[in-house]
């Protein structure tokens, strides 16, 4: 274990960054929904799974290829999310936030149970798109083309989302509309619509990640449940509500998890929780969150 090999370590670091960018993409949606709407959305894992399933339906049934699925799945799942927000979450918007958390837990169970019932638990095959096959031979490892694409796509989407929310007029309306609904309503802005749309967008990000995952991970009803709890931890570590925090914490945890997989693989699914406990004890609002 102690003859640390620089080559191997560079490989593990790169893998960590790749996974980290994927985590960043997944936690982004959660962070937006929490930061702007104060809803702890446990359906995010199920929405991720739905995204992957839409990709599979597309390819298998209607001849919709991977690239089309990258657009279609987020739109479809986003609509599902908006319906959920409009008809299930809005009625309890003024109750304790724990209730929205519990409601989304229940909803996630229903969605996952339904897909297990229809398709079994083993999963469905999804072929790698032709254009993304192959890879690059780096000095220290073989980098599949697809992973390079994951990093680029995830970082572009993350940065664009952050930019829209933090730096544009649309984002300013969004933030103002959720922070001070009465005032914005008075200005003639349809706040409930903004809330619904924001939820839909957060969920659509999960579906986008789901399509990204389909060629490399098992497409099965349980694919989201395993990741969700990890992604949650990442959002908490980054500071709930901080969009930049979620992105940076995603990258950071990807690397930490990657190194754990090298030095003490048994603990790789637990290390995130250890970090979370430490962060919350030292910085209660998370690494990039503002103290309440």
């Amino acid at each position: 274990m102690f003859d640390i090999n620089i080559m191997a370590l560079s490989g593990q670091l790169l893998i960590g960054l790749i996974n980290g960018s994927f985590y960043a993409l997944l936690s982004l949606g959660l962070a937006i929904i929490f930061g702007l709407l104060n809803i702890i959305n446990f359906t995010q894992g199920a929405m991720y799974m739905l995204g992957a399933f839409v990709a599979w339906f597309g390819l298998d049934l209607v001849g919709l290829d991977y690239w089309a699925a990258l657009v279609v799945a987020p739109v479809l799942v986003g609509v599902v999310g908006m319906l959920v927000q409009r008809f299930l979450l809005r009625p309890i918007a003024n109750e304790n936030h724990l209730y929205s958390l519990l409601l989304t837990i229940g909803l996630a169970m229903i969605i996952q149970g339904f897909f297990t019932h229809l398709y079994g638990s083993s999963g469905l095959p999804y072929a790698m798109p032709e254009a993304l096959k192959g890879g690059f031979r780096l000095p220290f490892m073989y980098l599949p083309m697809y992973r390079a694409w994951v990093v680029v796509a995830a970082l572009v989407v993350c940065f664009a989302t952050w930019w829209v929310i933090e730096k544009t007029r649309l984002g300013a309306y969004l933030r103002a509309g959720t922070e001070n609904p009465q005032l914005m309503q008075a200005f003639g802005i349809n706040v409930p619509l903004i809330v619904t749309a924001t939820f839909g967008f957060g969920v659509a990000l999960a579906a986008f990640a789901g399509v990204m995952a389909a060629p490399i991970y098992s497409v099965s009803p349980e694919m989201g449940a395993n990741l969700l709890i990890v992604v949650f931890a990442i959002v908490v570590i980054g500071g709930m509500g901080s969009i930049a925090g979620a992105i940076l914490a995603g990258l950071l945890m990807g690397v930490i998890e990657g190194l754990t997989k090298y030095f003490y693989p048994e603990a790789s699914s637990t290390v995130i929780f250890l970090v979370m406990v430490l962060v919350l004890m030292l910085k209660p609002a998370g690494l990039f969150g503002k103290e309440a």
Partner: protein
Amino acid sequence: MKALNKTLLTAAVAAMLSGAALADGISDGKVKIGVMADMGGPFGDLCGRGCVTAVEMAVEDFGGSVAGAPIELVTADDQNKPDLGSAKAREWIESENVDAITGLVNSAVTGAVSQILTDNRKPALIATSASNVFTTSQCSAFNAHWTYDVVALANGTVKPMVSAGKKKWFFITVDYALGHKLEETASDVVAANGGEVVGAVRAPLGTTDFSSYILQAQASGADVVALANTGTDFVNATKTAAEFGLTDMIDLVGLLVFTPDIQALDPAVIGGMKLTTGFYWDYDDATRDWSKRFIERHGRIPSMGQAGAYSVTMNYLKAIEATDTDDGETVMRYLKTHKPDDFFARNAYLRADGRMVHDMYQVRVKKADERRDGNDIFEIENVIAGDQAFAPMLAQCEFN
């Protein structure tokens, strides 16, 4: 003299026991079989509802009644939780007079259930569990471990590869009892045939991304990378191995692979992999005939666990018919002295330790251009005789 005495004594005891059993006939006027499995969880496709269908088929094929008594089925979802499984088994025996339990997937559940069954002198007809503890450290006179076990799979897959010169092995192992068992068993086979284990990593159950481990495997200089995991873990690891080009240079084998896992993977990713199975639906006319009936009812090809569940139920019922009693001891003795022979159990016999020894199949997963359709997945390369595949019996597990 001593030996003679022992024989006489055994005979006398046997006579008494069978006399008692005959007097018993069919307890409570019916034969009740429990089917317990993970129905909707991660192992749901290996046995689950399909096992229920298979057992139903066996009961129907047998005519719905045995030795003049009606056959009834009860089913339960153990959700892979040993406490749920053992509680259900206890309830079945104590308040529903269940005579035998089959299905049985998750080894932890099977262990808990078989203990209860043994305490109550009733057969555990284990159709899908992988661990070989049921005929070693947890062996019992009431276990019938029917379909396969980890030793048979390791012998079938590992031995020919090591013998063919693939000497260096690396393991990616799921970090719980099943994975440890698979790795340990396969490592023994590697060592026994002159190979060497160059490394192993323990990945937590439910790992999504295996690229770290694949990288470590690539760097290890191994000839073969063995996946000591199953289900979703196996699918994820295989996808990543193909993506990172591991399979271009190194052989990748699965140590515990079921047909649904194969069907969850693109042929481009899994094609060419070698593995061992206890059953394949497209082996010959007998397997095809039964499997077609199964597919009509269940919609998917039968896994080895599901075919095993049919076979073990059928043979259990035959034993009751022949002995005219559902007494666990009598039935087990009959099963161990009368060779099963059906589409599933070829050249088969139930050994005194409860291990059903039968032909195993060494197969290669077909590539996309070799497949007629989605169900045409294996090319059978070799049939391994049961005695070559399964481990020899341990003296302390020899029950009569």
